[in-house]
């Protein structure tokens, strides 16, 4: 598992892409993260992570249609690959197993 290491920010980005399903492009991801997590994200930080995840094979992307908005530039929609989904699931299960291993009293204190 350790070879599929996911950073905290990477994990959040992947989750957000999953939430947005077919609407996951740059600005939408940022907006979603800002509204859900109350967290400021710069385009630079997000784009770097998106490209990195794509290179690792966790995400895939394709261009949408060109519109009049955005200076006529196309959007790039990101989606999780199967491999990405597996990795995300694994991360989740690891967390859960850790949570379950906590003895009750230590959280109730």
């Amino acid at each position, binding site marked *: 598992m350790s070879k599929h290491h996911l950073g905290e920010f990477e994990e959040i980005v992947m989750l957000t892409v999953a939430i947005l399903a077919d609407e996951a492009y740059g*600005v939408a991801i940022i907006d979603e993260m800002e509204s859900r997590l109350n967290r400021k994200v710069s385009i*630079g930080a997000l*784009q770097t992570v998106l490209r990195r995840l794509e290179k690792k094979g966790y995400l895939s992307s394709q*261009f949408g249609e060109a519109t009049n908005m955005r200076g006529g*530039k196309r959007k790039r929609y990101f989606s999780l690959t199967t491999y990405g989904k597996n990795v995300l699931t694994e991360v989740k299960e690891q967390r859960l197993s850790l949570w379950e291993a906590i003895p009750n009293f230590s959280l109730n204190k």
Partner: protein
Amino acid sequence: MNPSDILTPPHWPSRFLRWYCHPDYLEDIEGDLIERFETDLAIKGPKVARWNYTKDVFRLFRPGIIRPLSGNNQLNHYGMFKNYIKVGVRNILRQKAFSVINIAGLAIGIACCLLILLYVNDELSYDRYNKNFDRIYRILHTYRSAENPGSLPPPSPEDFQVWGSAPVGPALQADFPEIESYFRFTSPSQLLFQYGSKRFQEDNMVFADSTAFQIFSWNLISGNPKTALKEPNSIVLTLSTAMKYFGYDDPMGKTITIDQTETFVVTGVMGDVPSNTHFTFDGLISMTTFHNWRPEIFDSWGYVDFYTYFLLKENSRIESLEGKIPDFIEHNGPDWYKTDNTIAFEPLSSAYLHSKASRQPGTTGSYTNIYIFSFIAGFILLIACINFMNLSTARSMERAKEIGVRKAIGAQRHSLIVQFLLESIMLTMLAALLALILVAFVLPFTRELSGKALYFSDLLSWPFIALFTGSVIFVGLIAGSYPAWVLARFKSSQVLKGRLKSSSGGISLRKALVVFQFALSMSLIVGTAVVFSQLKHLHTLDMGFTKDQMLVIDFGWDSKVQEQIASIKTELGKHPKVSMVSTSRAVPGAFLPDAGTRIESASGEMTMHNPGIYEIDQDFIPTYEIELIAGRAFSDDFPSDTTQALLINEAAAKLYGYTNAEDVIGKKFTQWGREGTVVGVVKDFNYKSLHSKVEPLSIRYAPTGALRRFSLKVAPEGMVTTLADLEQLWSQLVPHRPFIYSFLDDSFNRQYDADIRFGQIFTVFSSLAILIACLGLFGLTTYTTALKTKEIGIRKVLGASLFSIVTLLSKDYIKLFLIAVLIGIPVSWFAMNSWLDNFAYKMEIGPGVFIVAASICLLIALSTISWQSVHSALRNPVDSLKDE
């Protein structure tokens, strides 16, 4: 700003983004940015929107977004260059033997050039550390005798000497406001230094004016630069001398006893004189001390013992001073002027390498050697480049298919040329890297060879790195130019059809290059042989005196020794192994002064000349076995000899106009306050080095106070015990002075150290040049033999002998070699004859040298060739024939 512009994203950040952003990502990222901008514009207004946009663009400038350096859809040749490099590397790796030959040859060539560069750089750096380098001049003097002033032709540069009189400096400063200050120092004095129990003879202490630190940028570690040399009996020591006496104690203010009578106070410690200074000393004694000792010489224009340097004021021109010299001489030294003496100025920049004047305060460099070594280094590099050219063109067939394919798919000639040049530059770079490593390893050993300390760190300066990179690329271009041109000329149709079977390209040039290499190697061998035979020739030359088994004891004019010189001499002579003892001021090879001497000419007038002067006792001539050709030597039988007799040598007799030595006997002379008659003429003996002819010499009986050395003729057997005995005896006779001795032949031969060093450097470089040439020849024969594998196989099957095959493979090269010898002989003869002109006594270059050099060369070449040819001739023909 246009109002509509406000509603669009700012222009410059967008352009910046488009410049750096990865082209694959640009569209959607820019879209995102514009979307953000539009939202911001609606909610927060144009100002904030534009600011956020700019901020975002800059925050996007990070790895992962920035385009890779080797962009792939740009209009440039990155991709092609990458391919060239890849193919180049593969070629280097595939042809390991050839690559090793090429790279090793080039690396050695470059390393030689680097070493020479370091050496030359050091030679050229002399005295440049002085802040006032451009403003320091020194005074040259010429001492000539003329009946009427101005009757002699103007002096040539060789007529001048650096050594001069004391009053010139102060007089110049008084007359010329352009001179800021002057600095004089004396020739080194030999003084016995004592501090506590430490006692050494110091041979390199000079008396110096207090302006030393004002003019020269020597590093005074402690002491006041203005006052350190002001007071009498003060001394500034160099660091290593100070360490010798005081260790880690502070020497400042301590007193040193000199010659057992005078006490000196250490008023300063300076860093050792930098090695790139044209003169050196171990300590400076204040000039005022010398003034107190001998005040009269400071007004005497005729007493010569000073080197005078001066500092010109800024914005003054030396030319304006030079024009006023005659006036200055006439006005200051009228008597002096009448004898046609004069002075000249020499800039500090000329002192080390360019000065032709005699009596230099230190060793001088040789511009000729710089040229010779630079040439040799250049030749070595050239030979290595030729190897590269030869091997690449010879092996061009192996690249022919590649070139054919490249041309077929659209490569142009110039791009092929670029490819091959790039390959050769790559190879040169590798060689350069190796050369740097080589130099770093070899440098510590070059100290012996070059006689100076060279440091690798000298190579680490920006100008040097730029020069180095530039030269490496240049060498790569030179070496690669011809092969690139040949290779790019192939016609793809022919190559691909397989019509081009053998590489006819550049065979004649290749031959010419091989001839050139061997002519060069041959000349270098001749050079080495000549240098060493000449040195041997000097050794075996009859010097006119005996220098073997001559033990010289130096007591440095010690007054106590001189007082009891007769008894010490007798005691030393009593040792059974000592057959003769004599005392004198100078011995052959050591320094001697000149003396103005008048001798009666045949017509009865007194003629004035400046021969050298030897001051000796009556035993000197028999001890050194110097031959007399007329008259007699000094003798106890003539008591007047001690004050009224003079011996001269043949050269001096000729100088005074006597071709027949007998005629000068009995003529009157005056010299240094002594009058009398010439009693004898000695055969010319070589009292200086054999670089110069024997110069006129006068020999007189030494007055008290003028003696400095004992010469002992010692039997060769049991030298060690003899030395121990003598030292024991010396410590009884002269307890206060160390026993300082040398063997005359050692110290005499030391004069040829520079020549021997020259010979050694020459040998090393010649060997390297020949080694590289052989590497190239080896590569070339390997290749040509490989081409003939089948032919050899068939010949063997048909019954050819080993010998006939080896002959077949070698005869082409032997022809080339003979041509090389024919070219090499006249070239080397001419070059070495001009080198021999440095010597007054030169050997004859006979045919023997050339025969030996040619045979060595042929032997090396043949063994290189036969290595391959014998190997392939011995192979079983089945191996070479079965694969078809």
